[in-house]
């Protein structure tokens, strides 16, 4: 794929710079005397993982899920609830959390993918709200106030997440892993079918591909990657709350993907980075930062085609 192969295009340079920033932040931040940036970038990378996963179904698959943040919440809550019951072993927590978010994606996807267009948007939103209200109504796990996690996941002494640099690089590794996974999925035969179904589902069906199953599998993969982001967030913040999956989070995830460039491998990472840095900066000026951010969002949607990726120059018309 062109976007990985050439590092000399503006797109390649931009991607390299961002990944480089992420990779060296634990060294850079103390050198700049801003150690706080390590946490900022850890958060950005977690949102980037979630955005990358949404991009898989939204950008490549054309499935406009307005409830993607709920998998973030499910992944996080599984970790939180297990820790609450004293199970802090990551080898048990993480697979179970991934399983739970995958299972939720399977059930929701199976119902949502029976529909198209605006129905799909509304239903994914409604299911995410259902999980949100569920998390609020269960008092045992903190309802509105959320659930504090006393200990991060333990990996039998192999990896110590309590160490700031260690958890940072675990998140970095997960981000790179997700990007690689999405890259492989999208360029596989499986990914081709999903992308084909985005542009013409009837035709893909006619040439013999059971597109429903392909799209559902894609939906589940995206749900699980987003669940991973939830696991990481729960571990980083040592806290989970219903707010993680409140519907504006899903809207923000969509915006990150659109801002970065839909259907491009690296776009969502750039989108997450710009979104969160901008939100951070604006909220530093005024607590009413949405009054600036809202119009910005609308203007980007109306006038910036292809997001940041589109601004970096025209995409080569190369195959795929």
């Amino acid at each position: 794929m062109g976007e990985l192969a050439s590092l000399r295009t503006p797109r390649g340079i931009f991607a390299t710079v961002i990944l480089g920033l992420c990779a060296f932040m634990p060294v850079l931040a103390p050198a700049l005397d801003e150690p706080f940036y390590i946490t900022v970038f850890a958060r950005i990378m977690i949102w980037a993982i979630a955005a990358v996963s949404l991009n898989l179904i939204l950008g490549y698959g054309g499935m406009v899920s307005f409830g993607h943040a709920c998998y973030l919440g499910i992944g996080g809550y599984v970790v939180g609830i297990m820790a609450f019951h004293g199970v802090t072993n990551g080898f048990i927590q993480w697979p179970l959390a991934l399983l739970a978010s995958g299972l939720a994606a399977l059930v929701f996807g199976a119902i949502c993918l029976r529909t198209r267009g605006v129905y799909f948007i509304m239903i994914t939103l409604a299911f995410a709200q259902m999980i949100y209200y569920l998390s609020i109504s269960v008092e045992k796990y903190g309802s509105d106030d959320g659930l504090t996690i006393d200990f991060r996941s333990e990996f039998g002494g192999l990896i110590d997440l309590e160490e700031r640099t260690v958890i940072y690089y675990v998140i970095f590794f997960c981000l790179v892993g997700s990007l690689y996974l999405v890259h492989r999925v999208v360029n596989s035969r499986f990914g081709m079918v999903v992308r084909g179904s985005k542009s013409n589902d009837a035709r893909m069906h006619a040439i013999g591909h059971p597109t429903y199953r392909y799209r559902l599998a894609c939906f589940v993969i995206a749900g699980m990657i987003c669940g991973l982001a939830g696991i990481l967030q729960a571990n980083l913040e040592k806290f989970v709350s219903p707010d993680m999956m409140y519907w504006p989070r899903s809207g923000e995830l969509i915006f990150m993907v659109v801002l970065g460039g839909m259907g491009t491998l690296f776009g969502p990472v750039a989108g997450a980075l710009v979104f969160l840095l901008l939100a951070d900066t604006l909220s530093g000026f005024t607590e009413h930062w949405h009054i600036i951010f809202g119009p910005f969002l609308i203007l980007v949607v109306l006038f910036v085609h292809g997001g940041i990726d589109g601004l970096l120059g025209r995409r080569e018309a190369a195959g795929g």
Partner: protein
Amino acid sequence: MSWVFFTEQFLNGFQLGILLFLLAAGLTLVFGIMDLVNLAHGSLYMMGAFFCAQFYDWTDSFLFAIVLAVPATFLLGILVEVVTLRTLYTRNHLDQVLATFGLILIFNEIVLLVWPLEGLSMPVPTYLLGSVNLLFGIEYPIYRLLIILVGLAVAVALYFLVGRTRMGMLIRAGASNRRMLGALGIDVKRLYTLVFGLGALLAGLGGMMMAPILSASSGMGESVLILAFVVIVIGGIGSIRGAFIGAIIAGVIDTMGRSFLDVFLLLFLPANAAEAAGPALSSMLIYVLMAAVLTFRPQGLFPAKTG
């Protein structure tokens, strides 16, 4: 669980249903005709509530407040349509969702800037206080009963507007083929603006009637908006009749679930399990209903034939 309480809760559910209908009707019209997904519809509901409370503050009269707030939300709707939404009709649903999401952020923030206190409340007017005696000794607050009656009147009026008037004919024609309508010399742009204003007015009316009960606050529109989406999915997009029946079903089931599900669960489960599962399940009830409708009738219960 007495039968009086049961009826009372049923009426409360019905009243929630009426409120949902006021939102869903506008949403479904706007979607049916302009093919526009408007997330900011809940913001118009919120603005209706704020206008009403503010006008009440100035005039000290509930009636004046309503009379002023109705045209205010209508005009606000038209303003929103002309300034932003007009450019979105030709865009895909994703752009529409994102741009109207941006509108929600703006509206919520404007409200916080203009009314910085924790919301704006107003009392139920004294002549509407108290309750009436319905049949069999069932007491029900006059004000809530009035909401139900107004909602029913709106439903009937809309039914006639869409089914029996020239404007309704144009609305239906626009829903089935807007290009043809334009080619026949109808000013489609103006029709769209009018329909959007009408939807805004209905949502605003819902907000105005809820202002004395809930007090207006930033972000109040969103939870109702998502319920209205569920209503539309249940009822079938683009259909006023579907919106009405879907709204009543959703309102009644949601309210009844919250009041009676734990009692109902006691029949099968031990007390502590029922108490824990009751609230959790009842908050999910209408979403489960929606999933069931989608599984068996993906087009909704009353898919639009006429718009």
